[in-house]
């Protein structure tokens, strides 16, 4: 059983930032990622990030990804790729399969940054080839450089649905429409404007009834809904599409935390079931920290800041020093993203989680 100081599970924006921050404070870090290249969602986010200069605003996701990878290399952080963590056992023991070899690690501290998975949406025919998550489609076009279809229907008008629709235009697809069951869009108006002025219609109070096709998607039936979200069947309309993307939210990938015995709570504005954690990003299990979408669905920018926060917290604990100043900076930058009509709800949910942590977790 190999002993480690800090093991970070998941090399996306949160995991990379945590590794960099902890390594800078002299912590011996091991970063695990199941893919052949770390970066998580960064390398499929070809749009410019929001925020301010401190958040690397205006820079495209994959450029930020490259920067973080370079920093990881320069700091000589130990990175195991193609390594799947299959188990988070008691007393911070980790089971990893690395290139088909089973390795058991024991770590003083663990930061879990496994991100999130897209929510499915079941409608008749939703299992046909040609129906996929919007993030999955984003991976196909921006990372695998393959168009999974030419005529696209996007379900969901949150930022993911709107941004991926725009990126489908960039990839040369024809976006036949975005449908949203609510009477108003979920994402930023600027993202909607970006695709509307290129002729992409956004249908509100509209849902999907069916994906058509025997072997794969050949069409779809969309239909307006009344105030109780019931489809008004006589107004349904068939549209000619061969790709249907589902952008109806994300859910944190909690399996490892559940196995480790972490306590959870339910916060709809943060993606549903979320592990309880304190201001240092530590969960209810001593020594296990979380960061990024796993601790609540937000954006890559907040994922990077939470990664830094977790990295600094672990460094504080292992080095027995205080990095209060830097952590306050991180919290300030995090707060920048958690105000305004969009951010406010998330900030309140985060504060509720931290309050509930101190009520339920007695150290």
């Amino acid at each position: 059983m190999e002993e480690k100081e800090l093991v970070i599970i998941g090399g996306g924006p949160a995991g990379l930032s945590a590794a960099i921050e902890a390594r800078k404070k002299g912590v011996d870090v091991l970063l695990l990622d199941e893919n052949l290249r770390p970066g998580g969602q960064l390398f499929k986010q070809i749009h410019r990030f929001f925020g301010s200069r401190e958040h690397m605003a205006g820079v495209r996701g994959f450029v930020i990804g490259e920067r973080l990878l370079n920093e990881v290399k320069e700091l000589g952080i130990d990175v195991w790729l193609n390594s799947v963590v299959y188990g988070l056992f008691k007393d911070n023991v980790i089971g990893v399969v690395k290139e088909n070899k089973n390795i058991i690690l024991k770590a003083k501290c663990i930061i879990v940054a496994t991100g999130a998975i897209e929510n499915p949406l079941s409608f008749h025919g939703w299992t046909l080839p040609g129906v996929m998550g919007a993030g999955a489609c984003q991976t196909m076009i921006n990372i695998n450089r393959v168009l999974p279809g030419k005529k696209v229907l996007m379900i969901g008008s949150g930022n993911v649905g709107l941004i991926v629709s725009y990126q489908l235009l960039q990839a040369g697809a024809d976006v036949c429409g975005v449908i949203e069951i609510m009477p108003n869009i979920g994402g930023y108006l600027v993202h909607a404007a970006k695709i509307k002025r290129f002729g992409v219609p956004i249908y509100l109070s509209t849902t999907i009834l069916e994906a058509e096709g025997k072997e794969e998607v050949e069409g779809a039936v969309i239909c307006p809904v009344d105030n109780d979200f019931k489809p008004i069947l006589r107004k349904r309309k068939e549209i000619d599409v061969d790709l249907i993307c589902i952008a109806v939210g994300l859910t944190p990938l909690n399996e490892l935390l559940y196995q480790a015995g972490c306590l959870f709570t339910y916060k709809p504005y943060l993606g549903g079931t979320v592990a309880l954690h304190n201001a240092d990003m530590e969960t209810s299990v001593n020594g296990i920290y979380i960061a990024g979408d796993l601790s609540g669905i937000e954006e890559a920018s907040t994922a990077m800041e939470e990664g830094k926060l977790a990295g600094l917290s672990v460094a504080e604990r292992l080095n027995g020093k205080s990095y209060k100043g830097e952590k306050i900076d991180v919290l300030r930058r995090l707060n920048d993203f958690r105000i305004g009509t969009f951010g406010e709800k998330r900030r309140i949910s985060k504060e509720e989680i931290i309050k509930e942590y101190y009520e339920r977790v007695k150290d």
Partner: protein
Amino acid sequence: MKELKIDASFYLNKSGYPSEGRVKKGPVAVIECIEDIPCNPCEAICPFGAIKVGFPITNLPELDEERCTGCGRCITACPGLAIFVLNYNFSEKEASLSIPYELLPFPEKGDTGICLDRDGKYVCNGKVVRVIPPEKNHMTGVVTFSFPKKYYNIVRSLKIKNGKEKNNM
């Protein structure tokens, strides 16, 4: 089917939109950003300090229309692609609009096409008068095209019609 409709009324008297008078004077930035999103690259990029967001960064960008020269540096800096430069006096009968452009095929000077409004509906015909290639600004090009003056508050996009069919399929 109920559609999301976007038109000039969303933006007209908001802090990022130049007044009628300023528009008639010469090229000026038009910022169509009306939600409290945490974002301020436009403020940072403007060489004339004509855009103010301040703190917190969710404030709406305010255009100081006197300081703004219409230089267009902010067009490619905006992550939301929500800033244009309007030149009401492009010519005697025409106005021109500079828009951020990130699609292929990238237009060339002299291309003609149809001008679309904020809902993507046809408004009139237009001609590309100037382009800044995408490589200049981290792969966001700028396309300036002219169109009949009276549509200056409506036209927000251009679809190339006769451009060389260079698409990638």
